[in-house]
């Protein structure tokens, strides 16, 4: 079935997630959709599958305009989406999951569903125990089940959002085989990924999104360099680091590994010295988030040792790290970083408790006023955090960090901020470095990483590169590494 997206627009607050994207996908092809995090891939696909409603634009399916109010509308029209995080029911069985979302009877026939599941699984060489509970399955198996479920609903268009995150190499090969077969049967596949080699090997055509807009569309033959250029654009901000005299070691990792539900961190050595800024590059889910949390004791390490300021803190929890001057600034400001219903004065008293039992509120407000001036926060001491804009929330978070600090771990320091706020954030962070702190940060903005890091560590599928010198790295090489290319040559991690 041919798909045409016409001038699709979608904004979330001040962020434009989809900026008049027009894309035509002929039936029976595998269309790759490539882009950085936040480029608008998922948004566009959620619009096509009815999870989000566009602010403007039109969707044509097989030449006919359609309006989806609900994912079920899209499924009825033959469009199904496999989400990045499986939207299934872990506490139900395989069969029950397979049967969910099916229109029709109040008492569906389990026997018929079981037969259908067995047929479909046999066709594609999958093996399922219908009675097994879903939480005993691997991510890859859950994905296979979801594909079968969508096929049983007779979808003609299948959207897969980052489907290869968290599945094994064998499962990936099996998935690609299935997708090729479905496309040969005439179904249209939309394959969203940030991994260059997957898109190159699987897709018939590639569209690249950048900052919500269509940056370009390619059909083979094309070079990896072309893809990288389209994905990341040209560097706008030139590197502006001042070389820092290396101080005493602040963070020493030896053979550190950690695991979360979808990723295993390959053993890693890393040293960071006082005054240094190290940037973690990589696309979401490549391991940089896990690594950052392991350095704060927020995730238990499964191997190796973690030393902070020369002291072995392996296996300690976050409060112990914090006691040794490690702070963690999360990306989800209102969920993890700040207390939305409290004001700045209260936050400051929380982080720097008063000497006695009681708080001198007039003085606390005066202190907050000083910070507000110093950090140019647009708000008052009694403005609740959730009423501040994103940039001011980030400034408020930074105003809570008081020296002496050993190590600042920070996720996406300038995500969602305008240029002016972003500059202000980095001036603050630099000041902490001058005072002897080290910074380890992750960012999905390559320009930010290149501009502010003394060294760069690239993560891909849980592997981490040795620290790289940004002066010798051009954006293309970095882009290749992030997309998982050239790892054995450039970075024998």
């Amino acid at each position, binding site marked *: 079935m041919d798909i045409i997206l016409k001038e699709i627009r979608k904004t979330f607050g001040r962020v434009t997630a989809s900026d008049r994207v027009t894309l035509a996908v002929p039936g029976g092809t595998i269309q790759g959709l490539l882009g950085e995090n936040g480029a608008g891939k998922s948004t566009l696909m959620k619009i096509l599958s009815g999870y989000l409603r566009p602010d403007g634009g039109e969707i044509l399916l097989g030449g006919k305009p359609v309006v989806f109010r609900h994912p079920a509308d899209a499924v009825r029209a033959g469009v199904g989406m496999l989400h990045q995080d499986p939207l299934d029911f872990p506490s139900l069985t395989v069969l029950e999951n397979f049967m969910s979302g099916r229109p029709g009877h109040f008492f569906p026939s389990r026997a018929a569903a079981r037969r259908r599941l067995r047929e479909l699984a046999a066709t594609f060489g999958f093996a399922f125990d219908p009675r097994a509970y879903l939480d005993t399955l691997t991510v890859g198996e859950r994905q296979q089940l979801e594909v079968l479920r969508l096929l049983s609903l007779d979808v003609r268009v299948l959207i897969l959002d980052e489907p290869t995150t968290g599945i094994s190499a064998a499962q990936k090969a099996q998935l690609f085989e299935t997708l090729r077969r479905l496309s040969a049967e005439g179904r249209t596949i939309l394959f969203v990924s940030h991994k260059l080699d997957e898109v190159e090997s699987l897709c018939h055509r590639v569209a690249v999104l950048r900052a919500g807009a269509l940056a370009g569309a390619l059909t083979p033959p094309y070079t990896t360099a072309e893809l990288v250029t389209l994905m990341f654009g040209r560097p706008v901000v030139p590197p502006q680091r001042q070389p820092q005299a290396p101080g005493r070691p602040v963070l020493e990792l030896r053979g550190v590994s950690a695991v979360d539900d979808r990723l295993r961190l390959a053993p890693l050595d890393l040293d960071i010295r006082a005054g240094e800024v190290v940037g973690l590059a990589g696309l979401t889910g490549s391991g940089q988030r896990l690594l950052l949390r392991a350095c704060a004791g927020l995730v238990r390490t499964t191997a190796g040792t973690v030393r902070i300021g020369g002291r072995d803190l392996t296996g300690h929890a976050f409060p112990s790290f914090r006691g040794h001057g490690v702070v963690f600034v999360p990306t989800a400001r209102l*969920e993890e970083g*700040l207390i939305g219903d409290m004001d700045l004065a209260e936050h400051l008293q*929380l982080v720097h408790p008063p000497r006695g039992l009681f708080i001198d509120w007039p003085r606390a407000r005066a202190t907050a006023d000083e910070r507000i001036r110093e950090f140019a926060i647009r708000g008052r001491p009694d403005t609740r955090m959730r009423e501040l804009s994103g940039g001011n929330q980030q400034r408020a978070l930074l105003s809570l960090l008081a020296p002496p600090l050993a190590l600042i771990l920070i996720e996406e320091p300038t995500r969602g901020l305008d240029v002016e706020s972003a500059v202000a954030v980095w001036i603050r962070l630099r000041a902490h470095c001058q005072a002897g702190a080290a910074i380890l940060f992750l960012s999905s903005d390559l320009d930010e990483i290149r501009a502010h890091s003394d060294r760069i560590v690239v993560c891909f599928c849980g592997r981490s590169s040795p620290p790289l010198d940004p002066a010798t790295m051009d954006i293309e090489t970095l882009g290749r590494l992030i997309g998982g290319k050239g790892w054995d040559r450039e970075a024998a991690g």
Partner: protein
Amino acid sequence: MIRARSLWLRTGGPVIGVGVAVLAAAGLLLLAGASPLEAFRQMGLGAFGSVNRLADVLVVWGPLVLVTAGLLVTFAAGLWNIGIEGQIVMGAIGVTGVLRLLQDAPLPPWLVLSIALAAGMTAGAAWAVLAGLLKTIGGVNEIFGGLGLNFIASALILWLIFGPWKRPGIGSMSGTEPFPESLGLPTLAGTRLSLWSLALGLAAVGAIALLLSRSALGLRLRAVGLNARAAFLLGVPTWRNLLVAFGLCGALAGLAGFVQVTAVYHRLIPSISSGYGFLGLLVALIIRYRAVWVVPVAAFFAAITIGGIQLPIALQLDSSLSGVLQGLLVLGVLFSDGLRHRAAARS
């Protein structure tokens, strides 16, 4: 226009809630074949018709305020301390245990009472901290943990009254052997009202109001209640503060148990908590964090409780109607609160 609207949103909600509750209660009374106006009048008379009635209201008010003050702490920390009933019971058991042990000892009564008070508060706090440990270590939601601990506490008190602590001869629902008058809090002549109970209640509200609004501990408790994850990352030891909140609330519940034993019943009875724990939860739900409101709202609920006793006498209605009215009030206020939030979110 916007100002007027927001003022209406802020104050109109509870008024509508109370109005709806009263109308619903009136409808129920009509169904029962009684005149609502007459019923409300009788309840008013039952609560305020004489000095003795007023004293009875205040007998309820004292422990109810103590319990509610404690619940403000756990609410601030984001906890549903359903185990409050068991904490009152354990406090009362602790008090009774000490009094039984020391009633024949050659000690001045004030000292025995002080030791009993400390024991009651400790027992209540320990029972609450147990619920907290179940939550922080075992991951047992405090609602379920509290329910389980309530059952255990009521089983324990029955066992004590019918077993080891039974009256000479035969154990009965009327409780243990009464303590000598010297081991009770002084009461006003002809009533069960002790000024000590009122003083303890007022002191508790004052202390909790001060704790929550002015102290560093109160700030930490509120931070944990509003966003435990962010508080943790900002360096607030989460589980320790949860246990402190449980402990403070349990201590005040134990204090309520102390008042019940030493001022009201002068012995241990099976229903020693009089249901004030659950009643306190209702009061705390209505007033949220505004500690000063404990005083009037608890008085209102105490008046409904006592006034309801008049219904079967004057109108042959069941006195449980007062419980229905209290429940309707809470539902009405919460419902109008919810509507208000939705309206605010939409505008």
